[in-house]
């Protein structure tokens, strides 16, 4: 069994108004060192396979087909033993 953590975020070239709102909130709390905030989502998956290479291939497919929208989003993932 494998475990995957998939991170999806807006491409760097696309404005993230949610990140900007969080940045302003942090600044108003006194965290003036906040240079930039980008948000995203985390998807946790457990896979019924043990081969990491196969898992990588299948996860890439899942991300491209459904989990991320390649027009506006980037994704990356980590695979671990469950």
């Amino acid at each position, binding site marked *: 069994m494998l475990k995957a953590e998939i991170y999806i975020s807006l491409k760097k070239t696309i404005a993230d108004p*949610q990140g900007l709102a969080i940045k302003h909130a942090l600044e108003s709390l006194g965290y003036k060192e906040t240079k930039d905030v980008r948000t995203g989502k985390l998807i946790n998956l457990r896979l019924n396979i043990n081969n990491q290479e196969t898992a990588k291939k299948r996860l890439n497919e899942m991300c491209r087909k*459904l989990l991320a929208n390649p027009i*506006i989003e980037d994704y990356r993932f980590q695979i671990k033993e469950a």
Partner: protein
Amino acid sequence: MKFGIVVFPGSNCDQDCFYVIKDVLKQPVEYIWHKNRRLDSFDCLILPGGFSYGDYLRTGAIARFSPVMERLSDFARKGGVVIGICNGFQILLEAGLLPGAMLRNTNLHFICKYIYIKTENPRTPFTNLCQKGQVLKIPIAHNEGNYYIDKKGLKDLEENKQVLFRYCDVEGEINRNSNPNGAIADIAGLVNKKGNVLGIMPHPERSSEKELGSEDGLNIFKSIVKWIGAH
């Protein structure tokens, strides 16, 4: 001619569309459950607004894999007339039947109000009863209407006259305050290259009777009837 309205779990403008087509436009119309795989008898398919699959993951991302969407894609490829309204527009984008994607409104608010849009191209199945530059008063109700497309894609849209509607003010002027959601190039509605598939964020079915504050939306449905009648 016959209209078909696709119903997904979470669609909520399907009945408004049905009412306008049947009782205002006096045209035959049927609901099509999203698991249906037979679309042979229809002349125009409507993807209505709402929150298909609760907007989970991304708006329209899960609905686009419903069984009906495969058939709808075939229908569109053969030149069938398709109109996606609000969530329907988002589904068409996710399905790749229209280019680009939707982002959250720049002000991060769900916006529900009457706005104005300007007709940019009156030579389409959806706008043939409008004049070029005609201003329509139609309401929006969305959280993700901030249309995005890359520079090259935008250039193609403009060159092929695929942008049918842009947000404007009551006079038809485009200015900083007339764009409610941050959409690139003030785009409120666009068609595919062939011109038979429309995605539009404002709701024409909510503005098809005077009692509701505007009947400008009816121009779009009447244009479809006229176009299909002539082809």
